[in-house]
């Protein structure tokens, strides 16, 4: 590893970050425009398969008769899932479409294009930073925050390809812009070599997984926040059921990745610190985060805590995740040497 960073690349990286912030901010405004004046998502976003499910789902129960399920050892929990799924689909009230001015229909598309561009620039910023320092570009908190913002926007844009979740854009991309701004403002340190303990290929495995999972959890968290602040008059926002479903999807993908990240962390700790688990503050909070997300999955899967309670649990888990990223690095001393907070 070189002892000195390449100053040209490092400066380029700093400028690319500023460009990313700018792109994200403009994208956020375009999303907001789209949200405020665009088509109501209940209509725009209904996936083709879901109305069918909604229409017939309720009738499905008699079709596969109750006694039949009994003899097949079916658990009623799956029925609960089905009926709720049906209920969710049916939940969206569909206002009549009204004609829209062109600039409004274009706002959503422009927002998406800007976000993709921002994502590319964000990635370039991270890559040049890594090249400048000659190592993986997540060796301190500044870089870590940049990578998480990237992951959140990427998670949102990829989900958006498959599911109608454009409404999340204003929130996720806005949060990313804020996060990057805060990183530049409060966390920036000169590019350079990382702490000795971070010289390991495990940084590529463990930290990348943690970043990817965090990106997905941010998407879920955004849904959770919208869920709580949404009032019934907000026809431009998707229904609560829709929000919950998107959050659940993001968590179902993010949770195994987080599990993997924690295990990879244990493997790394086993190499670096002489034990695979030692209740270092960072480990404690990764564990708490994991347990609370597991609680969320339980709550949703079996205990029938859907809706608001599940959302609250999800947000508590998200708060634990954020605390682990910010609070533990800054306030609690431990072995994890990410912090490197300036000044």
């Amino acid at each position, binding site marked *: *590893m070189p002892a*000195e960073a390449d100053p040209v690349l490092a400066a380029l990286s700093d400028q690319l970050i500023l460009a990313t912030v700018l792109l994200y901010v403009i994208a956020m405004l375009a999303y907001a425009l789209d949200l405020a004046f665009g088509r109501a998502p209940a209509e725009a976003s209904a996936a083709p398969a879901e109305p069918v499910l909604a229409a017939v789902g309720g009738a499905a129960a008699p079709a596969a008769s109750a006694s039949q399920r009994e003899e*097949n050892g*079916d658990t009623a929990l799956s029925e609960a*899932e089905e009926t*709720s799924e049906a209920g969710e689909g049916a939940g969206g009230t569909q206002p009549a479409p009204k004609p829209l001015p062109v600039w409004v229909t274009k706002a959503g598309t422009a927002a998406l294009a800007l976000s993709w561009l921002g994502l590319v620039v964000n990635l370039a910023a991270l890559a040049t930073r890594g090249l400048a320092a000659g190592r993986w570009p997540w060796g301190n908190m500044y870089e870590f925050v940049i990578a998480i913002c990237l992951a959140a926007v990427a998670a949102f844009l990829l989900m958006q390809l498959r599911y109608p979740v454009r409404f999340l854009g204003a929130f996720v991309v806005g949060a990313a812009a804020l996060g990057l701004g805060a990183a530049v403002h409060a966390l920036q340190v000169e590019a350079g*070599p990382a702490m000795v303990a971070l010289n390991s290929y495990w940084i590529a495995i463990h930290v990348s997984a943690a970043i990817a999972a965090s990106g997905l959890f941010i998407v879920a968290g955004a849904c959770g926040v919208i869920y709580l602040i949404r009032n019934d008059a907000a026809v431009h926002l998707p229904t609560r059921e829709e929000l919950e479903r998107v959050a659940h999807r993001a968590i179902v993908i993010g949770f*195994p990745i987080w599990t993997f990240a924690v295990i990879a962390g244990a493997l790394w700790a086993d190499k670096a610190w002489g034990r695979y688990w030692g209740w270092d503050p960072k480990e404690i*909070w990764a564990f708490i985060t994991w347990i609370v997300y597991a609680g969320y999955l339980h709550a949703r899967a079996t205990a029938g805590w859907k809706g608001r309670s599940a959302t609250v649990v999800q947000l508590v888990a998200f708060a*634990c995740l954020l605390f682990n990223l910010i609070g533990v690095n800054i306030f609690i001393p431990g072995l994890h040497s990410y912090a490197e907070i300036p000044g």
Partner: protein
Amino acid sequence: MTVTDTPERDDSEKAAEARPAKLGAVGWARWFWRTLTSMRTALILLFLFALASIPGSIWPQRGVSDAMVGQYYADDPELAEWLDRFWLFDVFKAPWFAAIYLLLFLSLIGCVLPRTMAHLRELRKKPPAAPRNLSRLPQHAVLDGDLTVEEAARRLRRLRFRVTTGPGWVSAEKGYLKETGNLLFHVALLGLLVAIGVGALYGYRGNVLVVEGDGFANTVAAYDRYMPGQQVNAESLEPFSFTLEDFQATYIAKGDKRGQALDYSAKLAVSDLPGAPERTYELKVNEPLDVNGTMTYLLDHGYAPTFKITDGKGQVAFEGSVPCLVIDPATFTSECVIKVADAQPEQLGILVAFLPSTVPAEGGEWVSIFPGAANPTAQVYGAFAGDLGMRDGVPQSVYEIPPEIQKKLKPLVMKADPLAVGQKLDLPGGAGSIEFTGVKEWIALQITYDPGRMPALLASVLATVALVFSLTVRRRRVWVRVGEGPQARAEAGGLTRTGGDFGEEFASVVAALNHGSNPGVKDAR
């Protein structure tokens, strides 16, 4: 019965909770077991588990940050005493913490066992008969062509459905892996707990500090601190030994991060068995030495300057290295204590500041500006004569002379100029002299044997893989009904039991039913 939360079960649970007054011992036990293994209890225990870990990140924990625990005791002994009474410095060994996770895992067993039985039964059973009216299912399609029951069954089997047939119908199901994954995941968590327990009982951990040129042999006596599990036999320690031939640390020389370490490496000459030929091993952070599963880790390093001390009688009372405590990791400004127990006529205690890269500072002070040993000096800032109290039987830290003892000693020197290597300071009153003879480095090692490591890894990998199946696989059923007579058409219906959209997959199943083995190929008729 299967332990899942069905609405009915919730009711019966509530009823059971309301009724325990009339129950006998067996009834109580049953009520307790049902409550313990209910999903709601599991959820509460999960949250308690998370909640109970929080104090572990608020208060310093023994074995993780012992020095900070000591600081609590120094700052406010009474408070520290109280915190200790609630195990707040040992949260993860606390009985209340153990109670939570033991209950949780008991609940887990109570939950998983009956579900496993049910799942095994279900695995042997055939999918249920087709409902009469397929058009009322969430997914429904009319098939083209005249499909026979046998042909439909064959095509569905090819899609890896489990298939059963009846007169005029085919019933197919797949996605059993979801429940299999879910059960394996929970079992793997149990396995992980067992592996951790085995490691704690049959493993050991020790710390030792080794100075360049010195050796270490893996016996209990050689450790500075040795923490065995309850079942560890002192004779069973892996009998390896090594010598620390050299230690190198490199630092960033310029810029903002000047002084930050770039790399450390310790060159060891390792002998795996007594008398075995030596091999060299380069020990680094992230690259432990592995001798048959006993791991040696490089945790820390510092300076160990060497001194030659002559006493009042003109005899060499001490000659060797003194490991120093690092006071400032950015510059490796260190403090060393030399206790010369053999000095005559009185024992000597000498406090030295070690500066690896010395430059003069304002007010006649000297400071270190870099962690590397570019210009090492040793500055005596306290030399005392008298009884050091080392024979009292009270163990002393090698890094300090206890203040109450220091008070009783006779001060000889309170501040001297820094000595460069080879320089000597004469102590006043003919008490002797101290010569700074050279610089060595020490490394702090941790040596660990944990027989639970591999099982824990296997359990975690199993848990992750099983979790992926549990979360991504869906149970789904497809039925086909084949009508009779020349006009009748075949139709298909399907549903998924655990949510998510099934439409796309159902469409491809219908295509496969229509076109046989090649769902992608257009019908040639």
